[in-house]
């Protein structure tokens, strides 16, 4: 069944999963909270549909949120040697959210980061339930702080 040259080691074949094992894996996958979920949850609490697409401000705002809520941003590390606190992970997360159409940064002139009503509704329905009540309250508060920071003129 395998092409002539490709060698598949039958001794290493995966043992059949039991229903319990399968359910455990599915459960773990469904309940995974990733850095992407934290950022998406924060963005779902923006009062407006768009914020300025300013990388300095966006990274700086999340950096400040991390300082106040380190437990929510454990995986985010920020360089502090540059002109602004930059996080490679945050850059990747924003790309993935863009790729999933949850944010839109690719608008004329690249001036806005748009989080549409539909995206917010999706995040509230599918992402926020991953968090406990306490964390959800924190995320809501962080959303407001984040918005204020990226809209500030300084």
């Amino acid at each position: 069944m395998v092409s002539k040259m490709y060698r598949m080691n039958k001794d290493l074949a995966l043992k059949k999963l039991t229903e319990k094992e399968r359910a455990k894996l599915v459960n773990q996958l469904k309940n995974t909270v990733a850095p992407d979920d934290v950022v998406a949850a924060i963005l779902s609490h923006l009062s407006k549909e768009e914020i300025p697409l300013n990388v300095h401000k966006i990274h700086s705002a999340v950096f400040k949120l991390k300082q106040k809520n380190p437990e929510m941003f454990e995986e985010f590390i920020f360089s502090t040697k540059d002109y602004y606190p930059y996080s490679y992970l945050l850059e990747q997360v924003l790309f993935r959210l863009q790729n999933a159409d949850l944010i839109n940064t690719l608008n004329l002139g690249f001036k806005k980061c748009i989080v549409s009503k539909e995206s917010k509704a999706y995040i509230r329905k599918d992402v926020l339930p991953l968090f406990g009540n306490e964390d959800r309250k924190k995320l809501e508060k962080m959303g407001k702080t984040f918005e204020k920071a990226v809209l500030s003129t300084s």
Partner: protein
Amino acid sequence: MTLASSIDAYITNELGSIKLAKVGAPKKIRDALTGTFILNEHEINVLDLPIVQRLRRISQTALACLTYPCASHNRFQHTLGVTNIVTKLFNAFLSKKEYSKLVNEDDLRELRLAAILHDVGHGPFSHACEEIYGQMKEVQNERKKPEFEHVQSKPHEIMSYYVVKSKAFVELITKINSIYSLNLDAERMANMIIGNMNNPKRQGYISDFLNGPFDADKLDYMPRDAYFTGLKMDVDFDRIAYTCLVDQRPGKPRRLCSDISGAHNLEQILFNKVLLYSSMYNHHKVRAAVCMIKSIFEIIDDNNLTIRNRSFKEPVDFLAIDDYDVLSSFREAPLLKDTIDNIRNRQLLKRALVISRHTVENRNLTGKVTKLTGNPAQIKYLRTLIADEANKRGLSLPLYDIWLDLPRAPSLNEPTLCKVRITEEDYVDLSEVFPVDWWLTAYNETKWKGFVFCPPDKKIREIVYDAAEKVLKDVEGLRFNPMAKKEAKME
């Protein structure tokens, strides 16, 4: 053992028996890409160390040579190229009268040695193995330490840093200083490798030559990888070197930046970067080969095997071997034979399903899968479910022959980390001159693809497609259109 202490012990063992002898004369080295240059006597001592010579046996672009036949260049060649380029950059900088007091000969000596050493922390197949040891807790913990967080160090840079800071290496530098009457400082070189600018004796622009937004490392690896793959890309290195400046505004970080007249050359580098990612680093065949390398280390881990008596439970083990060891490891561990034979005979895994903006109907849910990037444990759960589902349909696949691959998009931080001087007082981000980062993000978004890989037999691919489609729908809710199969070239 901490990462630092395990590397310290390893380097003590590697360098312990080395007797340094004074080298009689400098050497003229020919590099196919950057041209002929001189290596000084003390640099030859360092270049001759086994930990540097090992880089000859570490391919620069993992198994890209199985897709691009000429891409068999190695880390050693890249190391020499970076040494040559950092010198050219430095000398162009020094030729400007206003900067002659900002740098001195010691800086260049240390930068050149740091260039020679900057990749000694790489494991076999370069970034392929970095995807493995980079996830280990020893490295993850280090990345959060202030000295590394501060500069956002990559795993292999942290490894190189600890090699250069190891007691045995510091002693070796002390001997070199004594033989050649030099004043080299291993700690400063280690900091240059990670791009640390919090060094009171040296300003940030010094480390930017080697590890900054447009450094000698990038200026070598991009044209080198393009040249050896046959991809046609050009970099106007001379213009970049001569338009290079230091941001000297009061209160601002003293970083290397560019005059506005060099901006389009920097943009050109970024275009090249995204083209390299879409054409080579993230090419489906190249990624399939990376997955097969990861399979080797999974088999080793799951079955308590060893290569050269190393079990690869900790990052330092990856310093002890090279590509040759991995590809001949089946002699020591016969269980690896099939996977290694497949690599040696270029029998690569093939695509069974493609995840992209063109293949997923409900795109919002793509994020449920892509958020697993960088989380190998979770990805393994999904692979297990897919393999199990395929086996329920009559196959008997090993987990090691099923991969869910979510390649990283290239970072495009340079345009916001690099300033461009418009006038003496006015500096702006490169991205303000032209939003090259977002322009290229649009390109990346269209080009980005994730893959489910499996053995190449058509029937197996059909079954794995069905299994993957079912699992990704049941677990994550993703709905695929016919392009998911068509893009995998199955129809």
